[in-house]
């Protein structure tokens, strides 16, 4: 087995690992990202609510600093990366006097973090979001909350990293890390050996295992499951803002979150589990999610539920870690349980700073690409009738519910880090996200994916792990 050498090996292709790889790829450092799954963003980074938060916890923490450093720049970043983002604002709703008191606490905390925030009267709450329950007694407006497509963000970070020369290796689970006498390390997967001056541990819920392999700090990590219900944009299109329940001391509760696809998410729950692959929903929890969401926005009870899903947060003994390991000087941990999307741009810069302080010799590389080519989307194009001038395939709608054209699907299948499964196409284009759940289009997407990946109709991948045929 040959050994390839890199300045930095990043372990994990979630939103944090890909953001770090993208940042490093614009410097003179050579970088390789190793991801266990067959696509980037298969774990927490695809199953989250997609809120680019303005406020998450108290002031004075690194996480808050990174949220603050990321938040003002989302429009500019997402424009460059061709990622859907909208600063629609959030509205935290109090349903009782006790909750209204808590709102004051949250307001003070958010203000101390430097976040724009304002208490609203019951009347102002309904004016801001007419769909909120008339039982609301007060609200808190957080105008800098935004919604983003977290999967598109992760895929874009990966693609831009690749365009700038980063090597993205999928289906390579890191199994061992050995340290060499010259202070470098060898990262070993089932398929290769990678010699690295620095190792970035962005393995999410696997970060504890990766640190153990490297002889690093004893990080304790475990999966914390969140379940969601997705409701149709026939209803969700009327929502103006993210509707949060009041944060209580012990829980953040169930919210109603519009998505950039036009649908809305009800959730999430929070339950510790043991198996990171346990992403099962259950009937009792789903019923509770809908009931709690309906306390905030009664109309969700009548809304059409498109699907349910679950994802696992990388929970741990610390809510986030961005630091050099205390024992292994060339190992840097980059994990975040609950706000990884929201901190990702600044976390990538912070990681570069940590690496440079630890001795990585990396200078900005003139001429590095800072943007991805824009792929217009049929459903959201302001002038759809002009798109066939760009590509006649825009006129060929493949996913009828979400109005995804063959042009968009071809772009996903030929991106620098391309979709290689039906799910990969869905994650990058939204094809199959809609109310019929692919009953009209899945066969077509399957054939397009089979052609792009050179598979037969039985061997084409449905998810990254399983094929259409058995």
């Amino acid at each position: 087995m040959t050994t390839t050498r890199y300045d930095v090996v990043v372990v994990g292709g979630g939103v944090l690992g890909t953001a770090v790889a993208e940042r490093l790829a614009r410097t003179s450092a050579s970088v390789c990202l190793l991801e266990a799954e067959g696509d980037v963003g298969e774990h927490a980074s695809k199953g989250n609510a997609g809120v680019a938060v303005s406020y998450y916890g108290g002031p004075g923490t690194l996480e808050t600093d990174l949220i603050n450093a990321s938040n003002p720049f989302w429009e500019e970043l997402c424009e460059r990366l061709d990622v859907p983002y909208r600063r629609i604002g959030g509205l935290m709703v109090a349903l009782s006097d006790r909750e209204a008191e808590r709102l004051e606490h949250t307001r003070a905390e958010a203000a101390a973090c430097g976040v724009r925030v304002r208490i609203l009267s019951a009347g102002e709450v309904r004016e801001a979001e007419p769909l909120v329950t008339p039982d609301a007694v007060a609200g808190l407006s957080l105008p800098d909350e935004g919604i983003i497509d977290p999967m598109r963000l992760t895929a874009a970070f990966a693609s831009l990293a690749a365009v700038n020369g980063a090597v993205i290796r999928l289906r390579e689970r890191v199994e061992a890390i050995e340290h060499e006498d010259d202070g470098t390390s060898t990262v070993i997967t089932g398929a290769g050996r990678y010699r690295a001056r620095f190792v970035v541990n962005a393995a999410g819920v696997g970060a504890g295992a990766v640190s153990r392999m490297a002889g690093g700090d004893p990080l304790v990590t475990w999966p914390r499951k969140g379940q969601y219900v997705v409701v149709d944009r026939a209803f969700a299109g009327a929502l103006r803002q993210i509707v949060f329940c009041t944060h209580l001391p012990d829980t953040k509760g169930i919210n109603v979150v519009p998505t950039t696809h036009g649908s809305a998410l009800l959730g999430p729950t929070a339950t510790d589990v043991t198996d990171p692959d346990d992403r099962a929903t259950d009937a009792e929890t789903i019923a509770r999610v809908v009931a709690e969401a309906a306390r905030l926005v009664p109309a969700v009870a009548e809304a059409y539920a498109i699907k349910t899903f679950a994802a696992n947060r990388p929970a741990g003994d610390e809510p986030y870690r961005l630091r050099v390991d205390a024992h292994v000087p060339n190992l840097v941990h980059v994990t975040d349980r609950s706000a990884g999307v929201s901190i990702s741009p600044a976390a990538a810069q912070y990681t570069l700073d940590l690496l440079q302080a630890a001795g990585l010799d990396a200078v900005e590389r003139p001429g590095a690409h800072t943007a991805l080519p824009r792929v217009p989307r049929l459903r959201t194009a302001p002038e759809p009738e002009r798109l066939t001038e760009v590509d006649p395939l825009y006129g060929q709608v493949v996913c009828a519910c979400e109005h995804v054209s063959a042009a968009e699907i071809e772009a996903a299948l030929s991106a620098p880090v391309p979709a290689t499964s039906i799910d990969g196409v869905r994650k990058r284009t939204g094809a199959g996200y809609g109310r019929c759940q692919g009953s009209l289009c899945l066969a077509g997407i399957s054939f397009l994916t089979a052609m792009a990946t050179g598979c037969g109709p039985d061997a084409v991948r449905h998810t990254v792990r399983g094929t259409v045929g058995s």
Partner: protein
Amino acid sequence: MSRLLVVGAGPSGLGCATELARSGGHDVLLIDRVPVAGGESGWDKPEVRDLVRAATGAGVEFRLGAAAAVWTDRRLLLTAPGAIRWVEADHLFYAGGLRPATASDLNIVGERPAGVLPATVADHLLSTGVRLWKRAVVVGDGPWAPHIAERIRGAGGHVTAVGAGSPTWADQVVAGGTGLEVLGSDRVHTLRVVDGTRVRDLVCDVVILASGPLPNRNVDGALAEGAPHVTFVQPLDARGIAPRAQAGRAIAAHWARTNGGNP
């Protein structure tokens, strides 16, 4: 003279368009996303050809190979390869056909692995002629179920029917229970049938969702009953070409009587 659009050129859309054109004074455009008429019934059936002839004879104009996407302010966004444009009209008849119930429609919970497929998709995939699955669980007894089961059994596969009454097309029949749960992280390996406190695990390599039918809805602005200037032509009970065409004609006739010259 009003301009009427019918989206969907299956039997119900063909029947509807023909009746509208005959009821006089309307300019009727029949649209379908695929380049031939017939919808799920297929273009080559003699009954379908007769319906197409009748429509043409009544003066219906066809726009095939164009998908409708958005209906707003009495304009329909029509997308065809190389040409996306808005078409103005007074009223939209949506005859977009039927689909199987989704996992969410059926309150199916659990994992979301490879191998859980809508019946319509399974049908398309099976028509490639590749042997895809050995042990199928078919959920529900919608119009797709017998045909798919036959294809899988014909290729030597085993079919378990769940929640389909007592069909003749399955090797094994299991009652629906109170809930269904999908197990498997890489690929589905079990469908768990919960009945109160009892569970029964059906080992399988594919779960085919064949319950329903439910109406397909995918034109924004024409998604729910009550959408302005929209009539839905999606009879759920009529099965077969002639009954569906008849149901389409009846909906058009009713509309002409009640709305007539005033769409």
